[in-house]
């Protein structure tokens, strides 16, 4: 039953990711990416990371992709006549690089002598919170500064000079 859910989520994730990188219309790309992120959240839940699953939907599907959608609609850029790069050599090289990455990943995984997973603390919010305010406190505060920097940077970049 759990395996069935995993295979379904994996198939839908890869399928919608393929649609996201190949379809002409940017809105369809963004929406299929929402489906992909949803499936990745399902995978997190299957791995026991329940907080991350909810955070994935909240942050990625609910905020980042909404931002993408806004920019797509505000720019209203005419769809490029060809979705994929028309130059043949670059196209073959790109496809070959992607296929090589997939093959390398799969071969590495298959060659690995797998041991059953070690039991560890569950992925609930309390345990994660304790880690965030414990050993990783400095990084946590830095992330806040980074987000502020991104906010200010974005504002400066799109400000119209009069």
């Amino acid at each position, binding site marked *: 039953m759990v395996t069935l859910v995993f295979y379904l989520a994996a198939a839908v994730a890869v399928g919608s990711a393929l649609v996201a990188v190949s379809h002409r219309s940017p809105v369809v790309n963004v929406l299929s990416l929402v489906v992909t992120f949803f499936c990745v959240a399902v995978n997190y839940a299957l791995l026991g990371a329940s*907080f991350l699953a909810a955070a994935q939907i909240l942050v990625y599907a609910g905020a980042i992709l909404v931002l993408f959608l806004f920019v797509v609609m505000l720019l209203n850029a005419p769809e490029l006549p060809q979705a994929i790069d028309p130059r043949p050599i670059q196209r073959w090289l790109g496809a070959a690089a992607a296929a090589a990455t997939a093959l390398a990943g799969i071969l590495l995984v298959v060659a690995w002598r797998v041991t059953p997973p070690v039991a560890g603390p569950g992925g609930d919010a309390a345990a994660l919170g304790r880690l965030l305010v414990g050993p990783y406190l400095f990084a946590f505060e830095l992330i806040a500064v980074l987000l502020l920097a991104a906010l200010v940077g974005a504002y400066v970049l799109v400000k119209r000079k009069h």
Partner: protein
Amino acid sequence: MWAELAVTAIKLVVAAVALLSSVVVMVWVERRGAAFIQDRLGPNRVGPLGLLQPVIDAVKLFFKEDVTPATVNRGLYFLAPMISMFVALATFIVIPFGSAKGVELFGVPFGDFIVAGDLEVGILFLLAIGSLGVYGIVLAGWSSNNKYSLLGGLRSSAQLISYELSMTLAVLGVLLATGSLHLGDVVSHQAGALWRWNAVPQVLGFVTFVIAVFAETNRLPFDLAEAETELVAGYHVEYSSMKFAAFFMSEYMNMATAAALIVTLFLGGWTLPGLHLEGWLGLAVSVGVFLAKVAFFLWLFVWVRWSLPRFRYDQLMEIGWKGLLPLATLNIVWVGVAMTLGWL
């Protein structure tokens, strides 16, 4: 395992039916309530007190011609109301409706009347699914190929994501006080006495949450997205018949879920101080208490709608970012201080 699945299915069906019938009730309450506030009678011809009016409205919508304009983006046009309905229906499965200690159904202990009782990250699930509601509106606005729809859709989604922040921060205050993400724990934390209800120590958070939820459900005074007098009908102007009914229903269902959330997070859910009942009677009484509190807030939604004028868009954004966000942050600081001093 099958017994547990059956019990969950029964809870799901009962809660879904309750949510869908809340739409029916709210249509009647809205029309009659609006009329009384405006010093007139409202619909009172169809059935006693006009109670069959929602049925007639549904029949009318069903028989209306389903016009699909030729220039819309078909796939997204059909997808948008589905997304709105899905979001409206999916959020209520983590809300505790009542408590049934000692009740057994098919040999499975009933526990609390929550549909998804095992979900440990209930509050996060609510916020996550709620943030997906933006897609329905923005896609409806964009796919309609109509500048009024697009404007309405973009305005509404900007409003939704702005008020989502203050709403989340207000919920964070409740989370700090409770110490758990599970909504059943939030309710049990508030049981016992009236001053334990989260609205009492966290007044600022309560007020912020109620205002933010008005904005999240696109209700007046924050309903610029579908302002009848300005944008015709905003993002759903090109929709007719059943697809419009889908948007209409999802708005009322969002309202019901929002009222249920206010009650669960801040007003003690199904608890009433001094009431400890067990078994089926306890279940009925606690659900009744919950429904009474939710009914008050649903009436509040209708009351505010017909009493206040709507905000201009820049006023709306200003309130969201410059007004509610600092207040919600102040609430969290207050909760932190109170917890350190041992008051909470």
